[in-house]
């Protein structure tokens, strides 16, 4: 359904007119939600704009009014998924507490999200690396940001013993790989199974050092 030009719209009497920006926001969300399923099911490379458009039940013209094309749509979707996941992690660790508890809390949130919304997890973890240089760069940035967060566990005292300098990158990328394997096989992660194992894998190397020692 194509929208009427502003000057032909009926006057909204007695209520606030819905602004164009709000409409556009809702339409974007609708397309991104539909695109999640298509990208997750078909893979980024096999997905066409036509498939997204018919899943979202909008016109091709409306799609191009919102996005430059398939890649732009994917990048917007990736940013949305990551931003919402980071927000959820932020809420979970906002209370402060011990470093290792915050790491486990963050891990729990990420695994729960992946379990509850495997299509979104698949887009963010399996499909993003396949979606071209821009998506690959954003994926690398996400991994680097998570690794940086983990790095806080180290002592400010650089001489203190800890895992090798590359541990954070290997741990985050390694966890992503385990999820990649599960999601690719169509087996969403089971939080109760993975959380204790992964928490130990990520936190144990810091035992007796840095934040962990306090």
């Amino acid at each position: 359904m194509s929208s009427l030009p502003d000057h032909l719209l009926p006057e909204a009497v007695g209520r606030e007119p819905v602004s164009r920006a709000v409409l556009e926001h809702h339409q974007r969300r609708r397309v991104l939600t539909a695109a999640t399923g298509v990208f997750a099911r078909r893979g980024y490379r096999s997905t066409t704009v036509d498939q997204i458009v018919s899943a979202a039940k909008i016109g091709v013209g409306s799609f191009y009014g919102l996005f430059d094309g398939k890649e732009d749509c994917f990048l917007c979707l990736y940013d949305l998924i990551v931003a919402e996941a980071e927000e959820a992690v932020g809420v979970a660790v906002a209370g402060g507490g011990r470093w290792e508890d915050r790491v486990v809390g963050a891990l729990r949130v990420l695994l729960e999200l992946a379990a509850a919304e495997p299509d979104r997890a698949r887009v963010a973890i399996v499909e993003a690396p396949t979606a071209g240089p821009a998506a690959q760069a954003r994926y690398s940035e996400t991994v680097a940001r998570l690794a940086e967060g983990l790095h806080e566990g180290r002592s400010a005292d650089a001489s203190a013993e800890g895992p090798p300098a590359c541990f954070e990158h290997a741990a985050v990328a390694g966890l992503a790989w385990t999820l990649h394997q599960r999601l690719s096989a169509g087996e969403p992660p089971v939080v109760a199974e993975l959380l204790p194992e992964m928490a130990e894998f990520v936190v144990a190397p810091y035992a007796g050092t840095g934040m962990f020692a306090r």
Partner: protein
Amino acid sequence: MTASQGLPRLPPGRHGLPRDFVVQNQRDRLAAGIIAAVSEFGYHETTITQIAAAAGVSRRTFYGYFNSKEACYLATFDQIADHLCVAAREAAAAQDEWPARVAAKFAAALEVFSTNPQLARFALAAPPRAGGELTAHYRRALDAALAELTDGLPGGAEAQGPSPAVQQSLIGGAVALIVQKLEAGEGERIRDLLPDMVELFLAPFIGRAAAVTVAGRPA
């Protein structure tokens, strides 16, 4: 493109070489050609014309061996995987203890990738970016590499060893470190990762202190 460096082109015309030799030579050239092209341009950006040109053979010759770019990629990938497996087992043969065998296998693989970083780009960086059958093939190959590394794990350690999910993270993390070196343009220094990689991989199996000793990292 300098793909066929080190693979001298066969003299044209009747060279009197046995047919098997010609076939093997052309196959090897195509393998070298696709490795050079994919490591430079990426899998999807690589065309069969580029592979044939890098191999110094005609497109027609390419189609004599493979019916698609994917078939050529997968055959070449398997050749590299087989080579790594043989090199790893040879390196481990002199070691009796499981942790030392793991260290020797990592050393052999990192040496191969340092000597020719194009192989690492082709076999480790490209497949997760390609999607589809390449990624699926790569997932199975990493599982096989993990099985190779954990082969001969003593029963006692296995009982206390990390879960299969954590083991997958260990191999995924090890590969990520290699790819990170490539991205930093330090492919020739992949071998420098050895002590850290051995420690990271072994620590969940045998404890950190023992892993540090095997890795030989100055603690």
